[in-house]
């Protein structure tokens, strides 16, 4: 019994982080229709930013998180204005190649600047844990989960209630009609891309004290993120949450139940990706944003 509760808690915590890592991909695809293969590098750069702020300025990764998020947002906004903007009308293949190229450039830039050594940051919460009945709560994972949930809720609230959030949803559903409302679409694009990058950087900041950092850490994450958004339906934010929770729980279950499970857990996302592409290519929620898009 205790094992199952522990599994549920661990799966939930992992799912929360995955949600944060994947939701940016969902947002930028839902609004701009760009599949951003460089999203994992936003996560990686967020991690390194948190690591260096901790190493050089003794800032706890939790304290520096607002800075990391802000930096990620500004970087994403500028990247869109300077680079991505030019391929908006281009064929999908060009867009994919561009973001994939950006991903390679950023990875190798990180190797050049910081070498390929594994690094990790520590937070005040890193070594704290509490036993709650049969369940062991690792504080670092708990705090990361809570922060991830807060950020995702903030995004959903912004989309739902703010003037710009409403305009963003309008652009996702019908660009031409949004233009007729007087909504400056290019600005909404850049803003969405910035927010998407900020969320990726936030995931990176939280991961900095949970997993070892390397210039290549973004790639496996982005594969998982794609499995998640494919599972939930590309472009659907609610679908991304459902997909992330499902992946978090499944990976945790596999690593608990199978012998040598933590190795197998890394493969779960591929099984999902393959399964969903074969059985239900539109995802669980599917088409929520896509259907009316032109």
């Amino acid at each position, binding site marked *: 019994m205790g094992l199952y509760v522990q599994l549920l808690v661990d799966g939930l915590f992992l799912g929360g982080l995955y949600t944060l890592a994947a939701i940016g991909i969902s947002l930028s695809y839902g609004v701009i229709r760009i599949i951003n293969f460089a999203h994992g590098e936003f996560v990686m750069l967020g991690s390194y930013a948190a690591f260096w702020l901790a190493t050089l300025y003794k800032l706890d990764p939790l304290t520096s998180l607002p800075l990391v998020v802000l930096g990620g947002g500004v970087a994403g906004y500028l990247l869109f204005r300077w680079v991505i903007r030019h391929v908006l009308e281009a064929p999908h293949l060009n867009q994919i190649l561009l973001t994939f190229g950006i991903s390679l450039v950023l990875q190798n830039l990180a190797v050049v600047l910081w070498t390929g050594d594994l690094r990790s940051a520590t937070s005040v919460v890193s070594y704290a844990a509490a036993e709650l009945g049969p369940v062991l709560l690792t504080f670092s994972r708990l705090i990361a989960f809570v922060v991830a949930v807060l950020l995702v809720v903030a995004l959903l609230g912004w989309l739902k209630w703010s*003037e710009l959030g*409403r*305009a963003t*949803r*309008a652009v996702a*559903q*019908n660009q*031409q*009609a*949004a*233009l*007729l*409302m*007087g*909504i*400056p*679409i290019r600005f909404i694009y850049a803003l969405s891309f910035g927010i998407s990058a900020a969320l990726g950087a936030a995931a990176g900041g939280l991961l900095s004290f949970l997993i070892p950092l390397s210039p290549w850490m973004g790639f496996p994450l982005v594969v998982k993120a794609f499995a998640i958004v494919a599972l939930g339906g590309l472009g659907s934010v609610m679908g991304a949450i459902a997909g992330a929770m499902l992946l978090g729980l499944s990976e945790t279950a596999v690593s608990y139940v199978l012998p040598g499970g933590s190795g197998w857990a890394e493969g779960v996302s591929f099984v999902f990706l393959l399964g969903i592409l074969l059985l239900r290519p539109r995802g669980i929620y599917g088409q*929520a*944003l896509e259907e*009316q898009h032109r």
Partner: protein
Amino acid sequence: MDERLQLEGIDAGYGGARVLEGVGLEVGVGEVVCLLGANGAGKTTMLLTIAGLLRPSAGRLTWAGQDLLRVPPHRIVEQGIALSPEGRQLFPNLTVLENLQLGSYCRHARPYRQASLGEVYALFPRLHERRDQAAGLLSGGEQQMLAIGRALMARPRLLLLDEPSVGLAPRLVAAVFESIARIASQGIGVLLVEQNAYGALAIAKRGYVLANGRVVTAGLAAQLEAAPEVQAAFIG
């Protein structure tokens, strides 16, 4: 300032295909002007050109004496011209209220949002009843009311309506035309594109008939009703 829309010698089209050739047209304050013509005559192209979604290759397009040719579409709304497009183009997953709120996104309309909402709900009480429904779940007539209401939320001085009666039951068509007449009576100019020529001419002051991208007849609504070009465009 005389708020008058003037088009002169407009050529426009898509890619290489020219749809409009040397088209001229005028709409003044508070008058309903209808634009008639068969399918493919260029009526929608004309509205898209005025709204800035399509760039004409030649001609003059002015609003209140100002050149509109190089103004991007989102700025044209701010100048007081709102389009209720063909096929309504609502935001289907957003609620009726959210659709209306988006209608007043532009800077000059936003401060008056509550007042505009009151006016639109007064014109279409049905929208008030259904304000929390997703727009995609509305009936055809309600969607049309929402499309017109959303355009009105921008507090336009000129309203462009693309086939507001299409696909509606006859009883609803009459209601929609009646509300258009009420909108114009508040001093808003209306350029009305319609398949339903006689319904449109009944509320319009003047009209233009397009055929193959050219204006073939223009005149007072009463004269147009009997004009052979109108008969030809719709019966022939």
